[in-house]
């Protein structure tokens, strides 16, 4: 050993290699760092570091009136922002005791299922990319674009949507939104089928994913798995069925479950959920079209204290002016109470735990972020696996850094 080279103590005796996976490696799809100990190409242990994009949402929420928190929820799981928005509005409505008209519920279901498709589409196609199949990813992106165009017609935004208001939507869906929805319902199934054909029985893809990153149902439950990852392990827990919200009980759909909980099952469950979502959207669209007369124009509940009045009324009517001012300035005191509400998000049970002491803003707001909770199982999933399996396991879990770090 040359006396000029100073190696760290113990590095000669060390038989494993330390490798930094992330935080900015393209394969991690987000800022997540894993310090891996490798024996050859086998993973011995993983030390996970998260929090690179922590933005203190829970603290910020303690100052903001309810309506201003919607913009924070956008930035949790940014692949399916409308789902978070709707979940938050429903939490507020639960606290305030607001019941929404059926048409609002159905419109929300359409938007939420579109968001679920967009979310699953990203995750499944990214899995393809990590297995070496880039084409599928590029191919389905144009259908996510169609979904974003529908969002754009509904609320004017695409990624961080800030969609909807407490009580319903800020405006009615226009005709173009429905036309685009019809176009999507018409064109997307063919593309999804083609995407499925490309992967589902693809020998390379199957070899890369079957038996990789598997977890048993018991361990998944113990680790707090929810959503497609839990269902892939064989537990049919879905918030839409267990605690129906937004009139999900009016719809006919099935909950796909897997058996082994490995990456391939997770992919299959998401794939089947997209078909189910399509069927739910069709049912919801039919129900929306069935409304006639005045009912067909309803797009929000009557909650003057939280729902902004029409702008022309603000200029001409006293009450509207007062409500407008109070909502914009956040002067309305919210009722005291504690409420937990959850929705089936893109990657699991997205919960909002809201404590109000009767002030203008929440006393405490906690987000139950599904991927923060299940990402801690990652080390157990990849221990003993190859490095390339770790990459595909990570993308199959559908981790969104924005949601994990809040």
């Amino acid at each position, binding site marked *: 050993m040359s006396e000029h080279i100073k190696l760290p103590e113990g590095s000669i005796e060390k038989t494993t290699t330390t490798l930094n996976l992330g935080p900015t490696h393209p394969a991690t799809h987000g800022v997540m760092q894993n310090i891996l100990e490798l024996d050859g190409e086998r993973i011995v242990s993983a030390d996970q570091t*998260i*929090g690179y994009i*922590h933005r*203190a949402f*829970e*603290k*910020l929420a*303690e*100052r903001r009136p309810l309506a201003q928190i919607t913009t924070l929820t956008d930035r949790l799981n940014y692949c399916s922002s409308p789902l978070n928005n709707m979940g938050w509005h429903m939490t507020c409505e*639960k*606290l305030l005791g607001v019941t929404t008209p059926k048409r609002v519920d159905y419109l929300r279901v359409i938007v939420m299922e579109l968001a679920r498709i967009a979310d699953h589409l990203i995750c499944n196609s990214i899995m393809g990319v990590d297995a070496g199949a880039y084409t599928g990813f590029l191919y389905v992106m144009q259908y996510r674009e169609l979904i974003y165009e529908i969002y754009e017609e509904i609320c004017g935004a695409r990624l961080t949507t800030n969609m909807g208001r407490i009580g319903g939507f800020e405006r009615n869906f226009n005709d173009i939104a429905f036309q685009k929805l019809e176009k999507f319902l018409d064109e997307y199934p063919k593309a999804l089928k083609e995407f499925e054909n490309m992967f589902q029985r693809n020998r390379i893809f199957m070899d890369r994913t079957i038996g990789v990153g598997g977890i048993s149902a018991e*361990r998944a*439950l*113990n*680790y*707090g798995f929810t959503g497609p990852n839990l269902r892939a392990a064989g*537990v049919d*827990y879905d918030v839409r069925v*267990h*605690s129906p919200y937004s009139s999900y009980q009016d719809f006919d759909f099935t909950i796909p479950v897997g058996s082994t909980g490995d990456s391939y099952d997770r992919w299959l469950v998401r794939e089947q959920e997209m078909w189910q979502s399509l069927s739910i959207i069709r049912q919801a669209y039919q129900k929306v079209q069935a409304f006639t007369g005045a009912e067909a124009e309803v797009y929000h509940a009557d909650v003057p204290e939280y729902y902004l009045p029409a702008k022309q009324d603000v200029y001409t009517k006293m009450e509207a002016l007062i409500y407008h001012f109070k909502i914009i300035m*956040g002067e309305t005191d919210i009722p005291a*109470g*504690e*409420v*937990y509400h*959850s929705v089936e998000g893109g990657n699991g*049970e997205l*919960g909002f*735990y809201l*404590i109000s002491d009767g002030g203008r803003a929440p*006393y*405490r707001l*906690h987000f*139950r972020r599904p991927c*923060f*909770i*299940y*990402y*801690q*199982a990652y080390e157990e999933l990849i221990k003993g696996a190859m490095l390339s399996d770790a990459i595909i396991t990570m993308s199959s879990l559908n981790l969104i850094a924005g949601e994990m*770090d*809040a």
Partner: protein
Amino acid sequence: MSLTNEIIQQRLTEKFADQVGEFVISYDMLQFSAPKEINLKVLNFLYDDSQLAFTFLTDLTGVHYPDQKGQELAVVYHLHNLKDNIRLRFKVFTSVEQPDVYTATGLFSSANWMERETYDFFGIHFVGHPNLKRILNVDEMDYFPMRKEFPLEDQTRIDKDDEMFGRG
């Protein structure tokens, strides 16, 4: 017979007598609290009892109530019985001077990071936790930011000179 809030309350009072209390049903969810010394006993009972079977930890978080002397910090557990599909909320309170609460990691693997997060933001020390260090904030941070002594700026203040934001 499916499980109801009344049965849960009855079973808990049978087992722990007056140690569990403050039963409230808010928005259909049963909520109760217990002294922090028996938090694991309560969680274990809820987990192991074949009728109750609260085997899924949905959420674990902290709350700071600076005005409650001796009980400033709360740990809130949301538990879910997936078979009968019923949820409950369980709280333990601890003083801010000695914020020691037993860890639930032995029962739920999912509690690991959730307790780390609660420690990170509220400084609640989970006794027996395998790896209790900061998770979202930087390791060098020497305070617990979600406590109420760190207020955010008051939006209605008028002493600030920033014309650009309409408050000049």
